[in-house]
C-alpha cells in the first residue's frame, strides 16, 4: 500500500464524508428533536438534484439551482410534516410506514417527471478540473464539497451554541415539555428544524449530482448510509453526525478498495457493533 494510494483514499473518503454530513446532519437534528424516523430523507436528496437539474436546463447558474432546490424541498418537507408527521410522535412504526409511503410516491413521481435516465449536473468552470500535487490529483469539486460541509457545520454549530434561537432548539431537544413551559414555540421550532433537514438533504443532492449524478434509485441507495451516520454518531448530535460521516466515508472507501467482496459488510458490521456497545451512538443521549 503506497503513500499515494493512502492519501488518495483518505481524500476520497473525506469528500464522501462531507456529502454524507450534509445529508445526515439535518436528519440527526430531526431525529434528536422529534424522534421521527424519516425514510423520506433520501427522497429529499434525490428530488433536490432533480429540481436543480430542471432549473439549470432553463439556463440558471449552479448557485441559483442550489437555492431553488433548497426552497422547493424545504416546502415539501414542511407540507409533509404538517399534514402527517407531527401527529405521529412516539409511534415509530407509524412514522416508518408513513414516510416510506412518501418515499415511494416521490420515487415514482420522479420517474414520471424526469424519466429513468441518469443525469449529471454540469459544474461551473471554476469548480471543474483538478489540482495536481506531485503524483496526486485533487478534483477541485471534491475540495469544494468539503468546503461547503465545513461551512455548513460551522454555521450550524454557531447558531446552535451561540444564538438565542439555538438555545431554544437545544431546549426543545432536551425536554420539549419544559421548553413549552417556558414559552418556547416548540411547534414552530420543530417545523423549522424539519425544513432545515430537508433543505440540507436537497443541497447534498445537488452537490452529489455534480459527481455521482442524479438517477432513479439514488434515494434508497443513500438512505441507509444517512441512517447509519446518524445512529452511530448519536441522534441529535451534530458532533456525532460529523464523526459518523467521517467514519462511514472512510470505511466505505477503504472497504471498497481493500476488500471489494466484503465492502458493504466492512461498513455496516462495525456500525452494528458500535451500536451494540453504545445503543445511543457515540455522542447520543438516551
Amino acid at each position, binding site marked *: 500500500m503506497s503513500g499515494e494510494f493512502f492519501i488518495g483514499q483518505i481524500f476520497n473518503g473525506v469528500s464522501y464524508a462531507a456529502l454524507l454530513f450534509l445529508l445526515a446532519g439535518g436528519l440527526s437534528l430531526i*431525529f434528536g428533536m422529534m*424522534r421521527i*424516523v424519516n*425514510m423520506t430523507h433520501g427522497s429529499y436528496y434525490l428530488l433536490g438534484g432533480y429540481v436543480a437539474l430542471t432549473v439549470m436546463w432553463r439556463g440558471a447558474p449552479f448557485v441559483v439551482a442550489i437555492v431553488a432546490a433548497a426552497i422547493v424541498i424545504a416546502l415539501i418537507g414542511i407540507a409533509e410534516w404538517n399534514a*402527517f408527521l407531527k401527529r*405521529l410522535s412516539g*409511534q*415509530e*412504526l*407509524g412514522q*416508518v*410506514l*408513513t414516510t*416510506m*409511503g*412518501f*418515499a*415511494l*410516491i416521490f*420515487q*415514482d*413521481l420522479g*420517474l*414520471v417527471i424526469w424519466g429513468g435516465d441518469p443525469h449529471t449536473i454540469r459544474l461551473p468552470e471554476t469548480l471543474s478540473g483538478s489540482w495536481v500535487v506531485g503524483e496526486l490529483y485533487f478534483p477541485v469539486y471534491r475540495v469544494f464539497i468539503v468546503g461547503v460541509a465545513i461551512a455548513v457545520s460551522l454555521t450550524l454549530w454557531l447558531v446552535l451554541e451561540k444564538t438565542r434561537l439555538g438555545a431554544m432548539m437545544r431546549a426543545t431537544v432536551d425536554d420539549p415539555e419544559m421548553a413549552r413551559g417556558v414559552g418556547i414555540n416548540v411547534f414552530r421550532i420543530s417545523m423549522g428544524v424539519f425544513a432545515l433537514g430537508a433543505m440540507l438533504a436537497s443541497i447534498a443532492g445537488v452537490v452529489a449530482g455534480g459527481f455521482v449524478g442524479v438517477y432513479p434509485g439514488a434515494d*434508497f441507495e443513500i*438512505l*441507509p448510509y444517512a*441512517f*447509519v451516520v*446518524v*445512529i452511530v454518531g448519536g*441522534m441529535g448530535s451534530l458532533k456525532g453526525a460529523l464523526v459518523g460521516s467521517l467514519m462511514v466515508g472512510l470505511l466505505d472507501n477503504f472497504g471498497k478498495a481493500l476488500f*471489494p*467482496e*466484503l*465492502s*458493504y*459488510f466492512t*461498513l*455496516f*458490521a462495525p*456500525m*452494528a*457493533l458500535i*451500536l*451494540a456497545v453504545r*445503543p*445511543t451512538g457515540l455522542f447520543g443521549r438516551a
Partner: protein
Amino acid sequence: METFIRRAPRAAALVAAVLLLALPPFVSSFMLSLMTQALVWAMLAMSLDLLLGYIGLASLGHAAYLALGAYSVGILTTRHGADFWTSLAVGIAVAALGAAVFGLVALRATGVYFLMITLALGMTVWGLANRWVSLTSGDNGIAGVPRPRGLPWDVSGALPFYYLVLVAFAVAFVVLWTVVHSPFGKTLVGIRESESRMRTLGYHVWLHKYIAFVIAGAAGGFAGVFWGYYNGFVSPADAELATSVEILLMVALGGRGTLFGPVLGAFVIVLLRNVVSIYTHRWLLILGAVYIGTIVYAPEGIIGMARDWLKARARAPLRPAPSP
C-alpha cells in the same frame, strides 16, 4: 351477539382455509402463482408479527432472514444439486444462526434504537449479497433454482408446488400459533405491555426476547427457502431495506399481534401489486398511498377495524333510544 363476535373470526378463518384448499385447481395459472407467492409472504409476515405484534419490537431488517433462506436454497441447489430436505434444513439453520448473532447485538436496544440497529444488521446481509460475488454472484443474483427434488411426490408442476407451499404455510402457522398461545407467548405479551413488571415478577426478559427473536428469524428463513424455490431466482433485492419495510407494512396493514392479520396483509399486498400492475405502471404510487392510508385510516390494521366494527355492532342495540 357476544357469540357472533367470538365466532365471526373463526368462521372467516375457516372459509379462508377452505378456499386455500379447494380453490387452486379451478383458478388460472396466473392466480395460482399469486396465491403461492402470497402464502410465502404470509409466512414471512407471520414470523415478523412474533416480534412486532407480540413483543412490540419493530425490526427494519427482517428481509435478511428471507435472503438467508433464499440464498441457501439458491447456492445449494444450483451448485451442489442439493435436495429439498437438505436445502430446507440448511436454510432454516443459517437464518436461525443469523438471528442468534443479530439478536445478541440488537436486543440491547428498544424503540427507535432497535429499529436502527436492525436496519444496520439487515444491511450487512444485503452488503454480502451484493458484494461477495464468489458466493452470491452479486448483482446478477442466482438464476435457475429448480423446483424441489427428493420429495416422495413430484412437485415440479405449479399445482403440486402450491400445495407444498400450503403445507409449509400450515406448519409455520401451527408452530407460531402454538408459540404465541403457550405460556412463553403470554410472557412475551407481558413483556410488550410492561418490561419492568415482568422483570420484577422474576421473568428472564432478555432470554424470552432472544428466543423469540431466533424463532422469528428461523421462521423467516423457512419462508425464504420457499421464496427461493418459488421464484427460481435469488438476488440482493430480497435483502433490501424496501423489502424489510414492505414486510412491516403487511403486518401493520393486516393487524399486528393476531397472526391472521399478517396473512391477510400479505395477500392484499401481493394481489394488489400484481393486479394493479396489469393496468398501470404506477404501482409504486399506489403502494405509497397504501402505506400512508394504513397509518391514517387503519392504525390497528384490517383485523383491528373489523374488531371495532363488530364491537360497535354488538353495542348498538344496548344504546338507549333517544328521547323525543
